[in-house]
């Protein structure tokens, strides 16, 4: 497959460049309204591009763009396969919903003269996440990783609570360690192979894999990205960051950032080391399954004890990342399909959950369970969306969580891993407990402040929330499309294509 025969698809570079260039435009506009308009328009534009790319990829296979016309491995190559296209659609779809949602929420939570900077940062973060997904170059990936990370540190620190600053700082330290580990790993790889192109690395890898340098590189890469992924026990930055960040930021990051990190993990394990039997040579499956299970149980248990609902959902996110990693760890077609489809499903559910929490914060300022008493009566529409999201986290049929669990348990059964299948189901029972704690206070307790009229949020917030909730119900009832895309992606990762 030589580069000359393949046509460059310019949409691929536009996907990254448009939000990247729009960010300085926002800064130059210096007005909250102007920046919001530009950012929203851009977020919709990249969503349209992403959908177009997904259609192209499903239709014709991989899409490639060579920067400056230089062929890989000399030049940097952008590359999108089914997996990448799926992740890009997840990220941009959430972006397209978060920007309209953010307008009112941000007005309330962030100082007026900083709002245009907020949108610039959110755009940078978006373009960083998209860049990570489309690039075919290991070093370029690091650059985008840093763009998205640095902007998310800033975004988190914009939270109202002063603890947002320490949360952002802690994330900064942990994130930097992760990024450093990653770049050390890339450096070691480069030393052994002389190339940074991932596809190129893949072909050279079998020749050098038995060296200690490559082993070290693999360890650095995996640990580094696991930090960004918040894989247990490297998750310590996540709860505070999600709790104290502005609502819109939490919704955006929870639904996208960890998914992109999971994507990178997939790339490392199945593309970079794709020609090497990594799972044979190392007890990788056992290690990853152990960490995934620890995340699923310990984080869910922590979620049960939280009084702050944002923090509860943050711990739930760590648990759900466990499901994604579990699917990856099984390293079979079915398992990978489950992990990949859960990226999408979890983005829908957690996006909807954090957005409804943001709406509650917007309307009432309530974040603790005590303050949420009787909220179901005051904000019926918002809470109804939260109920759908909560049921999705449990994995009730007709919600996307059910589809993920179906797939993961099937994968475990195919491998005759009975205890694992039972543990997956057991952990979703923990989700029942923490989700139901919220339902109980929201619907069965009387409001602390009586005679409050219904306090619903503006439509600009309700519509994105309900779009996600209804999308959740749709993809829970009809998972053929998502499962097919995920399956195509899994097959190509397993080298079946």
């Amino acid at each position, binding site marked *: 497959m030589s580069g000359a025969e393949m046509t460059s698809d310019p949409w691929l570079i536009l996907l990254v460049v448009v939000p990247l260039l729009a960010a300085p435009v926002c800064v130059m506009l210096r007005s909250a309204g102007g920046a919001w308009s530009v950012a929203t328009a851009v977020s919709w534009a990249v969503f349209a591009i992403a959908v177009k790319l997904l259609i192209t990829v499903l239709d014709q296979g991989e899409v490639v763009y060579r920067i400056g016309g230089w062929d890989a491995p000399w030049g940097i190559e952008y590359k999108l396969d089914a997996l990448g296209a799926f992740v890009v659609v997840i990220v941009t779809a959430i972006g397209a919903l978060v920007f309209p949602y953010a307008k009112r929420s941000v007005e309330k939570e962030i100082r007026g003269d900083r709002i245009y900077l907020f949108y610039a940062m959110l755009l940078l973060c978006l373009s960083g996440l998209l860049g990570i997904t489309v690039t075919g170059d290991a070093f370029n990936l690091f650059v985008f990783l840093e763009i998205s990370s640095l902007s998310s540190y800033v975004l988190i620190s914009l939270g109202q609570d002063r603890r947002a600053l320490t949360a952002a700082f802690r994330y900064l330290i942990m994130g930097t360690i992760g990024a450093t580990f990653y770049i050390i790993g890339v450096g070691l790889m480069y030393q052994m192979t002389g190339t940074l192109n991932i596809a190129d690395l893949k072909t050279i890898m079998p020749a050098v894999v038995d060296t200690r340098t490559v082993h070290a590189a693999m360890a650095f890469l995996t640990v580094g990205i696991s930090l960004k992924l918040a894989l247990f026990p490297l998750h310590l930055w996540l709860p505070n960051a999600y709790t104290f960040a502005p609502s819109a930021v939490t919704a955006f990051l929870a639904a996208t950032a960890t998914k992109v990190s999971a994507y990178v993990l997939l790339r490392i394990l199945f593309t970079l080391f794709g020609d090497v039997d990594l799972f044979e040579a190392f007890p990788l499956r056992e290690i990853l399954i152990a960490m995934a299970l620890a995340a699923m149980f310990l984080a869910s248990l922590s979620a049960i004890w939280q009084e702050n609902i944002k923090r509860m959902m943050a711990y739930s996110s760590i648990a759900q990342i466990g499901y994604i990693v579990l699917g990856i760890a099984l390293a079979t077609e079915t398992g990978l399909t489950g992990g990949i489809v859960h990226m999408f499903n979890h983005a829908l559910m957690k996006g909807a959950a954090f957005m409804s929490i943001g709406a509650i914060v917007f309307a009432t300022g309530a974040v603790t369970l005590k303050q949420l008493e009787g909220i179901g009566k005051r904000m019926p529409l918002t809470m109804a969306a939260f109920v759908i999201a909560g*049921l999705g986290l*449990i*994995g*009730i*049929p*007709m919600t996307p969580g059910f*589809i993920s*669990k*179906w797939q993961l*348990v*099937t994968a475990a*059964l*195919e491998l005759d891993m009975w205890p694992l*299948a*039972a543990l997956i*189901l*057991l952990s*979703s*029972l923990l989700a*029942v407990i923490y989700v*139901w704690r919220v339902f*109980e206070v929201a*619907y*069965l*307790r*009387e409001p602390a402040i009586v005679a409050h009229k219904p306090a619903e949020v503006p439509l600009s917030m309700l519509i994105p929330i309900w779009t996600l909730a209804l999308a959740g119900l749709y993809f*829970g*009832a*009809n*998972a*053929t499309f998502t*499962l*097919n895309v995920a399956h195509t992606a899994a097959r190509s990762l397993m080298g079946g294509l």
Partner: protein
Amino acid sequence: MLLDFITEAQAIQLAVVFPLLGGLLVLWMGERNRNLREAASLITAVLEFAVVASLTSEVLDGARPSVDLFEMLPGLTVTLTVEPLGQLFALIASGLWIVNTVYSIGYMRENNEANQTRFYVCFTIAISAAVGIAYAGNLLTLFLFYEMLTISTYPLVTHSGKVEAIRGGRVYLGILMATSIGFLFLAMLWTYNLTGTLDFVEGGILAGVVQGPELAVLMFLYMFGIGKAALMPVHRWLPAAMVAPTPVSALLHAVAVVKAGVFSVVKVIVYIFGLDLLTEAQSDDWLLFIAGFTIISASIIALRQDNLKRRLAYSTVSQLSYVILATAILAPISVAGAVMHIAAHAFGKITLFFAAGSIYTAAHKTEVSQLDGIGKRMPWTMTAFAIGALSMIGLPPTAGFISKWYILSGALETGEAFAILVIIASTLLNAGYFLPVIYAAFFKDEKPRGEDDPYHKYDNHGEAPVAVVAALSFTALGTIMLFFYPDVPLALGRALVGG
């Protein structure tokens, strides 16, 4: 077809969707116009029954109309299929829903319950789920509606919002969710992994793919996964749910929830395992023993309950295991008896609960020991109670006699001495905990409550409101009618086992 203007497929879909539409209407009316809201509930119930009933004749003629709703997973669709057992359950659920709605209106208004709109909306969702379970064409569809039923009844159980209601709700939800997600879901995926299908097929789908201890484990997962069937020890949700208002108890015990449980048990045994497979494998003996144990011990517990509703709840636990026992005997005639017993118990138990609620509404009495002489003040209620109780014991002229007769015949046919002993012993126990209530109500002298009792002002009561009395008289009459005209349920039961 009774309704000529719609096709079968539309009628099936309508049967599931129609209550939901009615629910939207109820929600829209809300508290603004309570009379219209209640009218909406009632009209929905009546039309729903008409839709369901319109499918009966075809099923009896041997047709199995089916319709695919949507493809949830590649190769797995949510499908509705009408077959004899499901048709019977749908008839019971939608028919008793009408009566229950009438009763609810009387009960909820008389007791000034809060959040009545939420109550009626959840009711419609629960009925839709029950009919969905009844018409489920495969296990996935069954599971979907089974969970929907659990979730939609939770707000009903915790309706009052009091601490004990929330606590009861936790037990209710906890047990039902834990069993369905932990066991039933696993069993379903295991089955799918083994066979590549989840369809309900006559003769079962598991023959030849699973045997020996694995079959027993799978059986275990199914039987305890269907927590709604209340086999011991997963029966605890049922007494815990007694905190609910009486119409909800009726819904749980007669109309939808426990019936959905035993219905699913019969359905899984007949259509997933297949009677032949189980007869050969002998791996369901333990089920017979567990069911027998549940019948006897629940009856003994019921004997010791002073709270009337709790006594009825344990009676339900015991009666449900009759259905399971009858199915586990594996003789076609006893399976038909199991089907009949679903109907008989539904009518009898709803009458008993209506009566308990009627007593609470009129006299504010909840304990058996308070009921001395109440038959004179509430002759209609207590007569209906007596009829329901006779049906539970299994005496003619009530429906319970017929179902017990068939179950016993099956047990005699297969020579299951254990089952015969259990049925005889439990009949005596049933008589032991029901007859004293009837005796006290009609033949003992009333004991007025003391001045310090907050409810003492209710002592000079008469009958409950008309809607309540009408509803319970109707179901009592139904219990007797089923004795004289058991044709439809029996025909459906026989059609199920191909007799």
